[in-house]
């Protein structure tokens, strides 16, 4: 028996020893099965992916996402500087509001997706773990000297996700229940200073909690002591985000594809789309005007066998695309996938097939999210 694990293309290409996160010992103490991911040792599961997934959908799951890059960008003219670097409209981003944006290369390819929050004296930016070092280098190239980028690598990041996350967190950090989706603020959580936003990567209501790394175990203990909360690993994080239709960097988006093709047009704000003036603007504007050859779509598979990343998609005998993420949906109890296919075949209900280990299995283009989002708007 041999295993093909969740694709490891997120890992650093160099063979460096994996780094340890502030909660490494905490995960091991709580039965986390540790694997290398994005250059760090991370818990892939505790009691099991299926149970953790379903628990998050019905109660509240605690995720350690401290591998992600937390940055703070500030200085004279930071708004204009950040607008020159990202296709974001900061004139409409209010204090403590969070917005999804994209780091694009000169050709309009997606280098990363990220979250930008306006704070009193600058912007708090969260980027993907696997790409953070490259992102920091890219920002250094794009930002003028008057603007400073601080890597907040002394901070941990936790996510508390699920319909009961608000009940558990309000008990510990009074006031968080008043936040709405994509709003944030500074709170005290068990005496610890925390920047908390109502956001996440599961499709559920929930929060992302930035705290000092040396207080991470204490905060994790407090959260886990709430009856609604169980620890959740990377495995369920992946199946939850897949059901929510949320793309994973390095799998469902990469520098070969632009934001329009990737279905991430909302990451390019309207004024910026019209005015340009960000890396790759020419290609992005052309894609908006002319459309793209392929599109990212959702697929619902027949039967129970899952399609994995790299499986080829067919329309009749013709190869028309490729699966970029796939797995068995614990909530829906059938396999689902994300794929890029020819734009003409991207309409919901289109019948396609997927070559899975030499057999062509039926699949239908399906609207995403596969499981309805339950954000607190």
């Amino acid at each position: 028996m041999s295993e093909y694990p969740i694709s490891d293309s997120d890992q650093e290409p160099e063979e460096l020893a994996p780094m340890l996160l502030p909660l490494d010992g905490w995960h091991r103490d709580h039965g986390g099965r540790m694997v290398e991911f994005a250059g760090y040792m991370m818990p892939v599961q505790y009691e099991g992916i299926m149970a953790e997934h379903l628990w998050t959908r019905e109660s509240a799951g605690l995720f350690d996402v401290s591998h992600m890059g937390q940055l703070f960008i500030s200085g004279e003219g930071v708004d204009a500087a950040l607008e020159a670097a990202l296709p974001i409209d900061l004139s409409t981003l209010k204090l403590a509001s969070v917005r999804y944006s994209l780091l694009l290369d000169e050709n309009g390819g997606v280098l990363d997706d990220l979250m930008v929050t306006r704070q009193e004296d600058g912007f708090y930016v969260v980027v993907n773990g696997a790409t953070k070092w490259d992102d920091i280098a890219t920002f250094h190239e794009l930002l003028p000297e008057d603007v400073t980028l601080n890597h907040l690598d002394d901070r941990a990041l936790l996510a508390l996700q699920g319909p009961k996350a608000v009940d558990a967190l309000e008990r510990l950090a009074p006031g968080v229940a008043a936040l709405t989706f994509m709003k944030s603020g500074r709170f005290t959580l068990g005496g610890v200073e925390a920047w908390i936003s109502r956001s996440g990567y599961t499709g559920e209501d929930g929060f992302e909690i930035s705290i000092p790394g040396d207080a991470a175990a204490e905060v994790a203990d407090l959260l886990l002591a709430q009856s609604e909360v169980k620890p959740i690993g990377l495995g369920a994080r992946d199946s939850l985000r897949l059901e929510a239709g949320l793309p994973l960097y390095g799998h469902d988006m990469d520098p070969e594809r632009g934001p329009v093709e990737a279905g991430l047009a909302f990451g390019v704000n309207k004024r910026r789309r019209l005015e340009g003036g960000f890396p790759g603007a020419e290609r992005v504007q052309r894609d908006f005007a002319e459309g793209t050859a392929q599109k990212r779509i959702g697929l619902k598979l027949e039967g129970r066998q899952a399609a994995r990343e790299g499986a080829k998609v067919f329309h009749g005998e013709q190869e028309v695309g490729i699966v970029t993420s796939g797995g068995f949906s614990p909530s829906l109890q059938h396999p689902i996938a994300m794929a890029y296919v020819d734009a003409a075949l991207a309409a919901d209900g289109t019948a396609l097939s997927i070559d899975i280990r030499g057999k062509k299995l039926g699949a239908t283009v399906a609207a995403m999210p596969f499981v309805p989002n339950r954000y607190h708007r």
Partner: protein
Amino acid sequence: MTRYFSQEHEWIEIEGDLGTVGITDYAQGQLGDITFVDLPAEGATFEKGDSVAVVDSVKAASDVYTPVSGTIAEANDVLADQPELVNTDAEVGGWLFRITLSDASELEALMDEAAYKDYVASL
């Protein structure tokens, strides 16, 4: 009846020239929640070490190799509707296929239960 184990975490129970094959309880624990099992066709012939089945879990697809050469006599069709039996009853009801051995001497290369236990403990 004698039961043998492979380093790839398959078990095979021998009765005459017929072997019943499954994955071990240790293996199912490593794979996690099993959602689908792709089984071989009756009458198909395989060499020892060939991939004859696929076990799909939430996180990954895993090959199952036959520990002996032979011809598939039967597949456990119950798993089509209840793949989770491989989790809950890996070494009895969660068997995958029965194979008619073509070379019983291949069994000599496999481990007995005590040796397999030691092997798992060493991992």
